[in-house]
């Protein structure tokens, strides 16, 4: 290639872009340092170890005003992860149900499923969040007229009051579950070998379910492990005010965030599931039928393994979206990382640059680690083509 042409089409544009970018960053950095100098703030992260002196309404770890900003950040992060993980679980369950329902040959079922999907996916998430919070959960009755659910859960304006599990020797119970899982895994392997040798099919599913249910239950029966419930009780504070004491209280902010995230994301997951199942060639179904597989076997052994290859990548994306969307918590004052850190902590310290960067960096780390995982998985399951 002609040297002049190379300079013109290759080096010049790149050099131009790079210079522009460096100048822009330099300009911003210069202004930032001038502005911070004017306000008497020195850039740095020392403030993280200072006393936060604000309270957080809901926390998974010990926290009060005397802890540091760093601890407050951790509380917010854990709250974000809590609502994201529970949201992901519920969204997946609902999404699979409605995705399969939309493909049902029952016209009524598939129509209802598509109404569900079209309704929730076309309404902004934040609107749903406001609806659940302000129009539903905030209009619930006061503790004295709580709505009972199965007489053990109580729904009030303060949230959902559930019994608390009090375990004795929880370790034994837990190891019973682990042992059951290990045994059923070994049984699965044995059953597979047996099938390969003799063609006989052992009832794998029932054996595994039985093991996982019975073994932990035995520890309860024999009295090694003890499970008690601490039920929430209505306590009268004065003539007009009463409240629930004991048990676990799930705050309404968490509930509404969970509802909104799960319903909204489930519609997208449902569409992914539908696309995945529809993306499998009809020939696969016919081939498995002609091999004599039942409908259930065909779905489990032939269709699903292939469909999952289509379903999983976009679904991971939805999990990521859900995690990022959980930041809307700030709108209804659920103490997630945005509200606690980018809200309250920022107001108190005035350190906009540090705090917004830390918050963004946290989300960035979450997203990038999930996408790396996803890319790795994608490569692993991708069809080897020529």
């Amino acid at each position, binding site marked *: 290639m002609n040297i002049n042409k190379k300079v013109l089409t290759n080096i010049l544009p790149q050099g131009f*872009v*790079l210079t522009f970018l460096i100048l822009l960053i330099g300009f911003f950095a210069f202004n930032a340092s001038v502005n911070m100098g*004017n306000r008497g703030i020195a850039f740095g992260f020392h403030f993280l170890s200072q006393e936060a002196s604000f309270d957080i309404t809901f926390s998974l770890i010990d926290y009060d005003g005397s802890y540091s900003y760093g601890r407050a950040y951790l509380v917010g992060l854990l709250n974000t992860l809590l609502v994201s993980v529970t949201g992901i679980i519920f969204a997946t369950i609902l999404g699979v149900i409605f995705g399969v329902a939309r493909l049902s040959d029952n016209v009524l079922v598939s129509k*209802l499923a598509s109404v569900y999907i079209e309704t929730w996916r076309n309404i902004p998430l934040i609107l749903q969040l406001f*609806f659940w919070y302000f129009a539903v959960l905030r209009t619930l009755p006061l503790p004295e007229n709580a709505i009972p659910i199965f007489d053990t859960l109580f729904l009030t304006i303060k949230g959902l009051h559930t019994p608390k599990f009090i375990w004795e020797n929880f370790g034994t119970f837990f190891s019973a579950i682990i042992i059951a899982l290990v045994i059923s895994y070994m049984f699965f392997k044995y059953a597979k070998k047996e099938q390969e040798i003799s063609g006989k099919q052992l009832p794998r599913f029932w054996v595994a379910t039985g093991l996982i249910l019975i073994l932990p239950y035995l520890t309860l029966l024999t009295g090694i492990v003890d499970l008690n419930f601490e039920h929430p009780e209505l306590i009268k504070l004065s003539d007009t005010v009463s409240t629930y004491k004991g048990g676990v209280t799930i705050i309404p902010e968490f509930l509404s965030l969970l509802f909104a995230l799960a319903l909204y994301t489930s519609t997208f997951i449902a569409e992914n599931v539908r696309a995945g199942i529809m993306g499998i060639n009809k020939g696969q179904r016919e081939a498995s039928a002609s091999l004599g597989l039942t409908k259930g076997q065909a779905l489990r052994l032939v269709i699903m393994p292939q469909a999952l290859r289509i379903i999983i990548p976009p679904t991971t994306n939805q999990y990521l979206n859900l995690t*990022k969307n959980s930041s809307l918590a700030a709108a209804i004052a659920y103490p997630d990382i945005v509200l606690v850190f980018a809200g309250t902590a920022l107001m108190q310290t005035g350190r906009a640059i540090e705090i917004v960067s830390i918050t*963004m960096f946290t989300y960035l780390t979450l997203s990038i680690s999930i996408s790396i995982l996803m890319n790795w998985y994608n490569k692993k399951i991708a069809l080897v083509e020529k």
Partner: protein
Amino acid sequence: MSKITAILRPEGKIDEKIYIAIGSLLVAFSFLDAAFNLLIVVNDTVSSLIALVIGIVGLFYIRTEDRKLFKLRQFNKAINSTNFNAFLTLICIFAIIEYTPYAYKWLFSEANFVGNSKEDCTGGGACWVFINVWFNKFIYGLYPNEETWRVNAAFIILLLTVGSVYLVNEKLKKYIILFLIFVFPFIALTLLAGGSFNLSYIPSTEWGGLALTFIISIFAMIFCFPLGVLLAMGRRSELKIIKYICIGFIEFWRGVPLITVLFMASVMFPMFLPDGSYVDKLVRCIVGITLFEAAYMAEVVRGGLQALPKGQYEAAKSIGMGYWKMNAFVILPQAIKLVIPGITNTFIALFKDTPLIFVMGLLEILGMINLAKTNPEWLGFAAEGYVFAALVFWLFCYLMSKYSQRLEQKLSTER
């Protein structure tokens, strides 16, 4: 199972029509039972279970093989092909019977539509008076009442321009698009903000309501599309520095939630500007949303670029086209056509994301509803407001997705 079938419904012994008559009776009875609790009520669960069992047996009798009854067989195929399907059908119908009356009562029959104040809401249902009274505020925000014609005019110009695409011939179309991108934003700004042509100045802090939702989404859409295309091209470029800058840019914006972007625009960005200078809140907001959505747009367009066969690039190069010419006339038209659904989805996502601007203190339709519901004279009407907003958003998102489906079909060159 087949034994039970044989006992309940022996083949050929009795006329099919009698089975169908029995079945229809049972189904009708089960519906009536579900609707009015005809049977002796033990408790709710048991009585609905009885209705369910009767309904399933009824549907089982209806499932005929008779070739003459074409309509009935189609009905069976649709909702009654197996016992399990019959069960699902009944569950759906019972749920509809149980809950539609409540929804109907709340939405229509017990709701109040006309009036001026909270006291006019006497029914047990929704209070649509709330929407009625606040309607102008929901649409125009705090924009002065006598000036709202300017908002209307801007949107009418936009609608006419977009509508005229259907009427004029192919050659003029690109001028309309150029007008939309380069001229229309200035016309709209002059109309909305005023300050010249004898129009009084209205600061962006007074804009609001649905109009603001549209202003932000339209501007962000107009800007994010070309930016996204450029980023996608950059990401596939052979120039290493440009490629990695584009990758970094895209992955950064895709990795953070929009709400933190808006936080950045509202508290962090002013720190980066020279002391004393000020950028309007609305502009910062639109820039933030544009950059954010451009990253998503870039990934959508990249999908289209990757899907094009290599031959298209080679063919364009072999007839002597340069990089820009090749992209503009050969690659992008095909690539973009491939990803119309993705582009619409990004636009819909952008439109649905606009309420987040509450972070910056701007009040679009949802913000106005939140403002109205805390008005001391109108406490307790959150549900009505949100249902109204949901309807508005749902309608526009639905229309957008339907339009994109039509566009996709129209542009399809597959035979």
